[in-house]
């Protein structure tokens, strides 16, 4: 270990004879160059950190003899230039950390790293990810590149990465088309926000059968394909787009889909069968659209529903439409009256007296069984504090939090009927 010193130069013969050296710490020193010659004498080296130094470039063949190296950390340096052959020779490298440097261009030298699994180059100054960027790295599982001013991403940049499970692209405004993700079949989380995407390919789900989270907010999407082949989809973020209609087959058979955010679109029509098959749906945000009606089929399991900002959606809802509702935001206060926000529903103290008991006498265990009848036989398999929190929760808050809540100036009676 040589970390946390003031080393600015490593003489060529520093590691002479250390043929079995496997792990080298040179981080937190004052190096301005990669000690290429000294490193050339370490054939058994498997893990090295040169992080927290002042290295400004990586010359060609800098690590040529380190064929056993598996982990290379270069984070928190000042690397601006990287030779096209800078990583030649690193046949076994699996982890490369280039985070917090000053790279101006995509590190193309990685194309020779055939066994690379983990790559980080976040917090650099890279503006584009070229076509076929990772063609030489089929084993990549994670790529971290946030906090770069990325404007352009090649259509084929993320193709043929069968082990990649997360891809996040935010603010790449030059992206006009949805990337072609052919062969990147393990992707579970795809975040592609604040770009200029107008159209989603019809076959988006065929390429991404394992998708769990799809976040496409702040684009220019007008039309939606059917997502029915995205059978594992759980979260769908489409807020701040230009979507006008939801068809019968848009979300059909998405049995795992829990939350949909369609707020801030141009929605004026939702097909009556649009949500019918969504048995796991609990959160739906349709706020700030142009809806005049909401089809209720399939929405019985909702716990969170947001509809404010749809001025033509004036019909009140029947109470039993949403038996599990907890948070409801509606266009008009009177629509909250159905849920007792007018003083009927809160468990007012007089209601306790009516039942001949006061909150303090209530046996927490019996109260708990009411809340969680399923746990009667095996005592508490809940954490004691979760139980306490729910008891507190049910005392303090009404079952449904409905806004805007009626008041003197927002009466329960619908004045204009």
């Amino acid at each position, binding site marked *: 270990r040589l970390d*946390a010193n003031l080393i600015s130069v490593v003489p060529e013969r520093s590691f002479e004879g250390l043929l079995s050296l*496997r792990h080298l710490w040179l981080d937190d020193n004052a190096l301005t160059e990669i000690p290429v010659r000294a490193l050339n004498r370490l054939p058994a080296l498997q*893990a090295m950190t040169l*992080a927290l130094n002042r290295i400004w470039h990586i010359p060609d063949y800098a690590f040529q003899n380190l064929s056993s190296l598996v982990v290379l950390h270069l984070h928190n340096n000042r690397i601006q230039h990287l030779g096209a052959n800078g990583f030649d020779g690193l046949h076994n490298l699996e982890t490369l950390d280039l985070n917090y440097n000053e790279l101006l261009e995509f590190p193309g030298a990685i194309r020779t790293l055939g066994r690379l699994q983990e790559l980080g180059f976040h917090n650099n100054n890279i503006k584009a990810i070229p076509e076929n960027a990772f063609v030489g790295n089929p084993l990549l599982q994670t790529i971290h590149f946030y906090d770069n001013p990325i404007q352009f991403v090649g259509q084929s940049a993320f193709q043929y990465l069968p082990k990649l499970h997360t891809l996040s692209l935010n603010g790449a405004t030059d992206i006009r088309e949805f990337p072609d993700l052919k062969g990147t079949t393990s992707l579970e989380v795809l975040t592609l926000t604040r770009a200029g995407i107008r159209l989603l390919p019809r076959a988006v789900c065929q390429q991404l059968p394992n998708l769990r989270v799809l976040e496409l907010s702040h684009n220019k999407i007008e039309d939606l394909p059917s997502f029915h082949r995205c059978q594992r989809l759980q979260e769908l973020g489409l807020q701040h787009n230009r979507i006008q209609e939801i068809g019968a087959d848009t979300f059909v058979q998405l049995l795992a889909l829990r939350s949909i955010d369609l707020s801030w679109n141009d929605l004026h029509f939702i097909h009556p069968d649009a949500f019918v098959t969504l048995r796991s749906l609990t959160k739906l945000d349709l706020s700030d659209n142009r809806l005049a009606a909401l089809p209720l089929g399939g929405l019985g399991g909702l716990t969170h529903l947001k509809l404010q900002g749809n001025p033509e959606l004036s019909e009140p809802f029947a109470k039993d439409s949403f038996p599990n509702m907890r948070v409801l935001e509606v266009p008009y206060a009177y629509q909250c009256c159905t849920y007792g926000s007018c003083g009927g529903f809160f468990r007012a103290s007089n209601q306790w007296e009516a039942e001949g008991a006061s909150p303090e006498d209530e046996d927490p265990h019996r109260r708990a069984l009411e809340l969680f009848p399923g746990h009667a036989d095996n005592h508490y398999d809940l954490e004691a504090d979760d139980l306490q929190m729910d008891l507190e929760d049910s005392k303090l808050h009404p079952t449904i939090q409905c806004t805007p809540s009626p008041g003197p100036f927002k009466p329960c009676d619908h004045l204009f009927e």
Partner: protein
Amino acid sequence: VHPNVSQGCQGGCATCSDYNGCLSCKPRLFFVLERIGMKQRGVCLSSCPSGYYGTRYPDINKCAKCKADCDTCFTRNFCTKCKSGFYLHSGKCLEKCPDGLEANNHTMECASIVH
């Protein structure tokens, strides 16, 4: 200075509090949260305890846990000594060595087969 942060800190602390121990460390030292019963106290060490690996950053040096099958490691994904019952190979802890390698029960590593 925040009322709860005392100045007279011990060991390698840069700032500390009576209740939480070290809040930050002097340069080059690693910050570790030690669990004492229900409480956690910050301590500053020159290197991370066994079963942890250190990562240096400009503003703090942190210790983090190795994987469950690993005794000592360089990073979370690169082990340098496995727990008993596992063989070390290229930073990974394996219950069985891959084809073409043989298990050395003395070093508990996978080694090339010597003909």
